[in-house]
């Protein structure tokens, strides 16, 4: 039998443990920035995990996943704006809204395959983006400030940073566990089978469309949860939340971390967002070391490095970080 103490497993559990002790670390060092950063990372990891469900297990490459971040966030924002602060109302409404949007756009998009699917999900997300832009009552382009976070009465206080972080983290772990159960269940076998060979699925008597659609809706609602949390964290929601480059970021997270495992997208989310924070410094330091010149100006242009890095990952490290840790084997 294989040992569970592989380098990969040790690192993965190290990462999860690290996420769990972030608030304590922030507390001791007084570094509040790291709290804000990691709350964001954890929330976007939820979104990436949900995208990974349809993308790597279901073979549905959705380029419009950020739409659910926006819909979830706007549901919270609009209800708050209209004076409804209760989380018991906000959260279900937000998730139902995401579910409905996924149901309708999924029913249309899943009639198509491959590139068509990519472009159509992108187009529908763009549509909802423009709807956000045209909502004059709710801030239009400038977005909507949320003055009060979702209120769960005496149950839980989301305004407390540590509490909020753990709410996000528990949600992430719960989502990961749910996805893990899902992909190994009979439902999951159908979803993976349909990705691998849809025609064969139908020949053995399984109507794949409805299973794929349900999977698409589940992923949409999960991502809606991330949208709810994101709006609460930023106390703000704007069309930029669902800009199509956001959807691109989510795909990057899922692929960068490594598709084909539940943990991959979490690794990807941490890697991408930490990279975004540190790359400017790295560029400046390495640039100084190599050229001997003061390179602080170069910090600004970190995307000049990130872009080609993505291309290189695509070309040479297709299994992502998780794939590298497993020694290039993909299953």
């Amino acid at each position: 039998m294989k040992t569970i103490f592989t380098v990969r497993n040790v690192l993965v559990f190290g990462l999860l443990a690290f996420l769990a002790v972030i608030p304590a670390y922030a507390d001791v060092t007084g570094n509040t920035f790291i709290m804000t950063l990691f709350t964001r990372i954890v929330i976007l990891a939820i979104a990436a995990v949900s995208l990974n469900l349809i993308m790597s297990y279901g073979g549905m490459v959705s380029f419009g996943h950020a739409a659910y971040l926006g819909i979830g966030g706007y549901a919270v924002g609009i209800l708050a704006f209209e004076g409804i602060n209760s989380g018991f109302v906000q959260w279900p409404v937000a998730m139902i809204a995401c579910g409905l949007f996924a149901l309708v756009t999924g029913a249309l998009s899943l009639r198509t395959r491959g590139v068509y699917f990519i472009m159509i999900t992108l187009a529908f997300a763009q549509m909802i983006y423009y709807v956000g832009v045209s909502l004059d009552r709710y801030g239009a382009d400038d977005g909507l400030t949320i003055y009060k976070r979702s209120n769960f009465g005496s149950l839980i206080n989301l305004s407390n940073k540590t509490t909020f972080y753990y709410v996000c983290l528990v949600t992430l772990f719960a989502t990961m566990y749910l996805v893990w159960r899902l992909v190994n269940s009979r439902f999951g076998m159908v979803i993976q089978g349909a990705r691998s060979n849809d025609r064969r699925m139908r020949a053995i008597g399984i109507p794949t469309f409805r299973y794929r659609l349900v999977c698409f809706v589940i992923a949409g609602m999960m991502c809606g949860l991330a949208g709810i949390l994101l709006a609460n964290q930023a106390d703000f929601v704007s069309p930029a939340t669902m800009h199509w480059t956001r959807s691109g970021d989510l795909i990057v997270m899922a692929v960068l971390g490594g598709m084909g495992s539940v943990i991959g997208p979490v690794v990807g989310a941490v890697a991408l967002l930490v990279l975004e924070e540190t790359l400017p410094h790295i560029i400046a330091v390495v640039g100084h070391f190599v050229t001997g010149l003061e390179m602080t100006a170069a910090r600004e242009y970190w995307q000049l490095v990130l872009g080609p890095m993505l291309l290189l990952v695509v070309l040479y490290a297709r299994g992502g970080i998780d794939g590298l840790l497993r020694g290039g084997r993909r299953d």
Partner: protein
Amino acid sequence: MTDALLRIEGVSKRFGGVIASDNISLEIRPGELHAVIGPNGAGKTTLIGQLMGEIGPDSGKVVFEGNDITVLPTWQRGQLGLARSFQITSLFLNFTALDNVALAVQARSGHSFHFWRDARRLPELRVPARDALARVGLAGREDVVVSNMSHGEHRQIEIAMALAMQPRMLLLDEPMAGMGPEESARLVETLRELKQELTILLIEHDMEAVFALADRISVLVYGRVIASGAPEHIRSNAEVRRAYLGDGKKKAAGGHG
């Protein structure tokens, strides 16, 4: 004869100027192994496509157990008990052999909206799947990932999957295609056992196998059935000899139908 299990009534299909099916009528009786033979391009695969609902006929009817299934989607035909194997191996390559067959078992045991329990630990799926693999001679190979298995093994899994659906009828689309003589011989034995309990429509190039197995044979040429009957009858039919068996003696290997 109204007691046919599967009845094809005057099915026609043309693709542009090519007539792939020209008013085909066939009856498959319960319990028989009916072979369809014909030279390449005779429209054999088009015929299977129409039986499975992947291609809609321009005219004509397909009746299965007394129900008109001409316009039913593929998956419903599967549910009704029509199972097929594919000419070009069509499996879930990243799954193990057992996973593949277990999916077929799953397909006939109700809907799959079960989100929680580990499908790989459900004895009601795994046990019948294991049995089906054993029947086609793949015992001990259950946990091998399909993409690492040989072509011959793929063909065996194809049949195991069809079996696992507990079908009323089996459509086998050139199951011997690309097999070596030894593998073919083994498959003939498997099919000989299967025909004891199942109705089978066999489309095959391997004449030896066809004449060894078939109760009745229909000959398809240019989308038309030119003869249909017992193997001796077909062997002695002048039109068939002229159209087909002349090169059949050389034992055509594989190719598209």
